[in-house]
């Protein structure tokens, strides 16, 4: 019966109902199913919310990041990335992933699909792929664009826990300390490194393969021309 909360979370998320509402309803349902009074449930929520305030300390960096953006942080990053002089689509996307992973590890969200991938990375990768293949088929063009979106996601997901006040790390700390395990944030940052590096290495191989495929198409095209 107490599993009602788990069911509510799954159903709520699947039907894309606002996550705050889903979680709050799931909490009350679980508590009631376990025979806890509404007043006590509210107090348990209040206690956990207060105890876990540190999860939201990222608020402290928002003014500085905002001020830097006001003074051209994003624009400088754009110039920086546009200045990457490499010739192949795979290299461009991998280098973007590397830069994105480093910055997200510093707690900065420059990057993202609307701000960087769409206006900058995807067109750069497409242009390079065009040169590599001497004429890009629609199917390959789609694949290159999808790989550009992938670079952002991989860097974001596997890089974000390198930042000491990352929401994910603080949630881990909160959940496990609630269960009586003291957690050191730096330990988690250090043990997030191998996964971050593995993602970079595997992505490097993946983008290398894409480049090879693009170059092969280019060579084949030349042969047909001759």
């Amino acid at each position, binding site marked *: 019966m107490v*599993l009602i*909360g*788990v069911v509510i979370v*799954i159903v709520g*998320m699947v039907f*894309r109902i*606002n*996550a*705050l*509402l889903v*979680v*709050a309803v*799931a909490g009350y349902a679980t508590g009631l199913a376990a025979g806890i009074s509404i007043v006590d*449930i509210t*107090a348990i*929520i*209040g*206690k*956990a*919310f*207060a105890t876990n*305030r*540190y*999860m*939201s*300390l990222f*608020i*402290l960096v*928002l003014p*500085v990041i905002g*001020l*830097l953006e006001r*003074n*051209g*942080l994003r*624009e*400088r990053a754009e110039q*920086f990335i546009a200045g990457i002089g490499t010739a192949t689509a795979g290299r461009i996307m991998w280098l973007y992933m590397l830069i994105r992973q480093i910055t997200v590890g510093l707690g900065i969200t420059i990057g993202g*699909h609307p701000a960087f*991938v769409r206006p900058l990375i995807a067109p750069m990768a497409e242009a390079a792929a065009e040169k590599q293949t001497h004429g890009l088929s*629609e199917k390959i063009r789609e*694949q290159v664009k*999808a790989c550009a*979106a*992938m670079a952002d996601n*991989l860097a974001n997901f596997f890089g974000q826990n390198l930042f*000491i006040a990352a*929401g*994910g790390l603080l*949630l*881990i*700390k909160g*959940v496990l300390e*609630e269960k009586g*395990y003291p957690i050191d*944030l*730096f330990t988690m940052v250090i*043990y997030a490194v191998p996964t971050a590096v*593995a*993602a970079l290495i595997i992505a490097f191989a993946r983008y290398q393969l894409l480049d090879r495929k693009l170059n092969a198409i280019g060579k084949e095209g030349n042969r047909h021309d001759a």
Partner: protein
Amino acid sequence: MMLEHVYWICGLFLCVFAVFSLVDTANRKRFGNAAFWLMFAFTFAFGSYLPYAVTGILVVVMTIIGGFGFIGMGNYHERAKAQKVVMSLKYGNRIFMPALIVPIVTILLNKAFSMDALVAFAISAIVALLAAMLMCRETPVDAGQEGRRLLDAIGWAAILSQLLAALGSLFDKAKVGEIIAGFVSAIVPTENTFLCVAAYCCGMMIFTAVMGNAYAAFAVITAGIGAPLVIAHHGGNPAIVGVIGMLSGYCGTLLTPMAANFNIVPAALLELQDKNAVIKAQAPMAAMMIIVNIGLMYFLAF
């Protein structure tokens, strides 16, 4: 300086954001924003002194304000794009320096002065803010407006982690984890460390894919598998198990249309014919990364 003082500062920041929100007539929902950030400020500054039930009521009211869409975006007196380009040419790569102060000063204070990591982080954030204000000759008002812009963009999701922690706490009281652990031990031979690790990592991946949210999955799966089996039963290091468990969840995020912002919206932005093209590109990466994570947890956490 202690964590409590850090909470007061954070409460002060939120209070400033609330006041700016209140006078932001460009935002049709300004009263919602102001109320939401003010209540959040209140729980931050006084959370240690208020009766827990009072904080709980504030959380419920915030959930209603945020959950039913009573907060929105306003006017933050941003600079025009052209002006920002001029600034970026003026400062060059120096603009990254204040951002670098945060991790460097945090590590320094933590390691050299053995200060609490979160307190160290808070101090470095303030130092970086002062550095940015000096370097760019900006006022505290600009800093407040810019901070509020970023926080409003996050919106109600800003309190989601804390609310999930509260859900985790209720799951604990209701012994939800033990029941799920019971199910898992019916399927997985729990005496085998490797299989427990694999079950936890795969469970994180699958639940994240289903829910579209690794944080929500973490509260459930860690209560059910991670804590009772991997940590308590087999003696895994909690910090290592936790962080690699979360990273396994992100493998699920790569695989799911439920995480629309990451997978479906970009496909639309890039005008892809196949709206699942990004997921298809990511699937082999996710498969390899989950294997890597299982291996890392098995070899590093024990």
